[in-house]
């Protein structure tokens, strides 16, 4: 039974069973491999995508729960805030192995959209579910602050 969902702005019909986690629809059927698999139990954040702008863990979100909500993956993350985040990530050399970074950026972007000037406590709350074994956390915090400041300055 095909399901149609909107992914990165495009209505897309997929064949996966309704109970298939969105992560495996993206990776397994649509070959959108920017969204990563890490734990399967929403404990690490590498599969973070947006549903109508809200960050969710795709590994525990069944296809049937997506409904009409717009799915955004790292491949479709655009806009001034996304650009500011990428620029800050580059300027501060955040990336190491890079495996968790799409998920980090999805969480960071959702945070900035909800709260353009997050405090350290806000950053803690929004980002603590995204694990990184390389230890890029100090630079993630700094890059988030930089992106936020850049967006404020840029109007």
């Amino acid at each position: 039974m095909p399901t149609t969902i909107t992914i990165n702005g495009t209505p897309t019909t997929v064949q996966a069973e309704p109970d298939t986690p969105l992560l495996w629809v993206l990776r397994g059927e649509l070959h959108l491999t920017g969204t990563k698999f890490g734990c399967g139990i929403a404990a690490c954040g590498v599969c973070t995508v947006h549903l109508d702008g809200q960050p969710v863990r795709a590994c525990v979100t069944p296809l049937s729960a997506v409904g009409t909500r717009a799915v955004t993956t790292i491949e479709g993350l655009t806009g001034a805030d996304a650009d500011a985040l990428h620029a800050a990530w580059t300027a501060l050399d955040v990336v190491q192995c890079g495996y968790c970074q799409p998920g980090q950026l999805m969480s960071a972007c959702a945070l900035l959209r909800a709260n353009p000037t997050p405090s350290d406590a806000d950053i803690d709350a929004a980002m603590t579910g995204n694990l990184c074994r390389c230890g890029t956390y100090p630079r993630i915090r700094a890059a988030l602050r930089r992106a936020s400041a850049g967006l404020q300055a840029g109007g």
Partner: protein
Amino acid sequence: MKRRTFVIRGVLAAGALGVGWALLPPRGRMGDGSHITTGGDERVLNGWVKIGTDGSVTIMMAKSEMGQGIHTTLAMLLADELDADWASVRTESAPIDAIYNNAPAITASLPFRPDDDGLVHRTADWLVRKFVREAGEMFTGGSTSMADLWLPMREAGASARAMLVAAAAARWRVPVSDVTVERGVVTDSGSNRRAAFGDLVVEAAQLDIPTGVPLKTPAQFRIIGRPTARLESAPKQRGTATFGIDVQLPGMLHASVVMCPTIGGGVTSFYASAALALPGVKQIMKVAGWNGGTAGVAAIADTPWHAMRAVRAVQVTWSDGAMAGVTSAALMQQLTSALGADDGYAYHADGDAADQLARSARRVTAEYTVPYLAHAAMEPINCTVLVKDGRATVWASTQIPSVARSAVARALDFDSDDVEIRVQYLGGGFGRRLDVDFIAQAAAIAKAAEGTPVQVLWTREEDLRHDFYRPACVARYTAGFDAGGTLTAWSSHSASQSVVSNVMHRYFGLPDVPIDRSTVEGAFDQPYAFPAVRAAHTIVKLPVPVGYWRSVGYSHTTYFTESFMDEVAAAASQDPVTFRLSLLQERPRHAAVLSRVARLANWTTPLPERADGVRMGRGVALHESYGSVTAQVAQVEIGRDGAMRVTRVWCVIDCGFPVNPTMIRQQVEGGIVFGLSAALHGEITIDNGRVVQGNYDTFQVLRLNETPQIVVEIMPSTAHPTGVGEPPVPPVAPAVANAIFAATGQRLRSLPLRLPATA
């Protein structure tokens, strides 16, 4: 002469005289590049670089990129000597070839202290390098990449540059001395004629490959030594970089495995009918344990999710094997018992420590323990294999392609020449991807679907429960003082499994090694001048599979040595930094690093007394590993509820000439976070032969909200570059433990650090 020295000298002499090849110098590493595949517009100049007629400079990567930034930093070496335009530089994973074999990782595993510059050490080092050139392995580990390739990749760049210069000089009929190179453009200074690399490369590639071309002096570097951004940062941010798990091939099938929950167990029987009835399922099969792995069952299906769901639906009857009934508490007891059984094998002894301790006026003794640890890299274990027409192609996130190739050849009964390994980006390695169990397993599974590529992906549960763990270890340290309170002796004895024995058995089926430097690294090569010292270890054979884990032996011995150093300083009523410095008078490099971190952390300025009842403390640790000297100060706060937070860490590292300060700083910060995960959370426990922890909910790693402020300084140096990936990991656990002592007066002698609940 020590017994160890005698044995090694004998072995080396016999080898050298008996075989004779030892008289020839180690084979050169330039290579002619005939093993490199090229596009139609590319020309190979040597085994390390090819240049396109469009001017693109493609640098061959003998090392796996797992976050340490080695692709960027290695490219800098060659590009600088080539005088390439950095914007034209790209990287490509090298195929397996002997010129890429890693020598320093093997010489560093010889049981010599870094300060041993004797003839035996130098001879052994030379012979091993020669052996490695002929029959070594291509791998990334032991923080050796820069030590290994600092000269070969610069020589390759200089040689390629000389070929381009010679081609230009011949074309223009001018002496080569008139030709200059800058940013990928070759110029005749007399006529000002210019040609780009791409325009010259076809002619240059026809020339002989020169060796011994003079290298730049540091003052001439344009790229080396400059903070340089990661080449692959953008694709990693955008999700377009290809990790092993992201490999996509036409018609590819997916497999999921469940291995016997009891490590080393097997499959008695299984019923697949329910699984086979699920959508997309192609095959259910038994899979053996390869290269130290555990046997299990695999499901092959059309999508990863179908494969995962199917394998869970297989009903399996397991046979438990050697680990049945084993618990980690009993294993720790076995290690403790081993300490009491004898004095262990002395890897280093100077003076008569036992006698000095017997005659000491006062003794201090402490016993430390550390648990097993998993690697828990963010990219779960996976591997993609196509078996077709008697050949196998393997796409893998691996640190050791040459052993992976042999393992696949063995699993398929192929010649190694019929196996190709294509190394992908690693979503973290940390030593886990130095093992090849999953690669041979994937080959065996793909053989069942011959002609079709199969991607095997483990769940996180399989990844954590079928790891090769950092060994648990128990250590007893004793120091003696004379009546005047002066330190007279230092003695250590530890007990753990041998990583080298485990790994060599898994790689090559070799028998156990009698001694293993990695069990005592950090303990037998401390920089301090002790009046008398003995560093001993007892290898205990236990059934838990152990492996290389970022910083290996140092990951725990430094926790022992630097915690105990703090205890000894306290027993001598001395400041921890001052006391260490008093033992480092013959070690200016170490003393400089320690002094600098103390200044950076304002060590001599007392921490404030807090009105809110929060107790603060600072602790220090110093060590040398992988040729680098690292010192850290950690600051902790302990709330009235007893909750402990690490708030700040300062680190100074001397890693020789800093080739790329950007990557060094990343590695230091990341190493501290990795070390803190182990110091504060990391613990694998075993119950009835099964690993208890199965995911990040139970195997906790450090999170952003727990991460301290980190300040890093790199010592200026012009010495040969040394290790960076691992040295920052070990000092943080003892620095934090010592900070907790400073704040509370409590010594925490086991990891992870857990403060007893306070009233």
